[in-house]
């Protein structure tokens, strides 16, 4: 059906989302590491609007924005589904993904904003644990969904201690299970580098990616 390519950067959680989604579906792809200090002509040509990674190519056609890419991947390769088939369940998952994306970046704040950001994150995690996870193993039920991937990369960066300390037992168990999934386990990101990257991004602009 066409060659699959991903242009990204090893420190970006948004790139990781795509890598994990492709690996979970067993899709072979070429990965091209982008130097963000020296953006390539390829990136500027294929993402002229936002000039950001990741950029995904299928049969030479580019797609930008990580959630748009993941929805596309889900439609082209529906096996090992990352979204429920029921439209209502799907709407609920998309709601939680937006919630996680909107609330998530506050975790990367440093300095004065940090305490308030931590409080907000804690509140967010409590809501997610109660309303989105409940007693399920993963947010997708028995299997990983897009929401597990988004949260897996968003909120456990340094968050395990947070989860334990604040008695978010179900999230703690979820995180342990998530990190045991073979595709995830064999390709865990460098958390410190990722956190530093996100903080730099946040300082540079209020946009999320």
């Amino acid at each position: 059906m066409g060659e699959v390519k991903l242009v990204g950067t090893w420190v970006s959680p948004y790139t990781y989302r795509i890598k994990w989604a492709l690996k979970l579906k067993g899709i072979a792809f070429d990965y091209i590491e982008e130097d963000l200090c020296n953006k390539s002509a390829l990136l500027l040509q294929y993402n002229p609007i936002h000039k950001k990674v990741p950029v995904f190519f299928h049969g030479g056609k580019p797609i930008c924005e990580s959630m748009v890419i993941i929805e596309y991947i889900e439609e082209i390769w529906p096996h090992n589904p990352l979204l429920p088939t029921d439209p209502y369940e799907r709407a609920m998952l998309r709601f939680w993904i937006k919630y996680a994306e909107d609330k998530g970046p506050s975790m990367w704040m440093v300095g004065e904003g940090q305490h308030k950001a931590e409080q907000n994150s804690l509140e967010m995690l409590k809501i997610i644990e109660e309303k989105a996870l409940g007693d399920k193993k993963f947010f997708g039920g028995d299997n990983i969904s897009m929401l597990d991937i988004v949260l897996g990369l968003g909120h456990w960066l340094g968050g395990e201690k947070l989860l334990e300390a604040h008695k978010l037992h179900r999230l703690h168990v979820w995180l342990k299970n998530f990190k045991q999934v073979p595709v995830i386990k064999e390709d865990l990101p460098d958390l410190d580098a990722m956190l530093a990257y996100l903080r730099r991004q946040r300082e540079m602009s209020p946009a999320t990616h």
Partner: protein
Amino acid sequence: MADEDVVLLDFWPSPFGMRVRIALAEKEIKYEYKEEDLRNKSDLLLKMNPIHKKIPVLIHNGKPVCESLVHVQYIDEIWPHKSPLLPTDPYQRAIARFWGDFVDKKIYGLESRKVWSTKGEEQEAAKKEFIECLKLLEGELGNKAYFGGENLGYVDVVLVPFYSWFYAYEKCGNFSIETECPKLIAWAKRCMEKDSVSKSLPDQDKIYDYVLHLKKVFGIE
């Protein structure tokens, strides 16, 4: 589908609410519209959207759906046979979703609000960015009648509610969007020829009055 129970909790000037109204009208779905007083939110709203306590909320057979981009996709998936909003081709769907995301980030985002809520240099910078984003959208529209091609599509539904706010932006920012982006205004007027759009958007003068009211409430000159 005669036994479908569809309720929309909404607030008349909300462009997010307008998106849902248009989508439901395009699909010819009968629904009950409930106007919310945002200073005195109903128990139903608080129960149906406890996380954000915001409108619009679409309640379908008793189950709530929140977030307007989620609404438009949900409505399209539940009632796929009439007026499909997203294309069938996955790549075209990705393009539509990309532009829907762009509209949310750049047109409805916090920066664009500065066009009416600030003055001086800050306002000029906001106006410039706002026009640049509208021009990018004009580029995407190209020579098509609608973003969806020959008929209204996802991006049209996501963007056109904002047209009802343009007059307020122009008055507050002292500029003409039509001069800068004539193709986009032509597109908006074309959309307004459709009942599903014209009956879902409030009068531009009413929105301007609402913006003046907001400025007073927030102490903005």
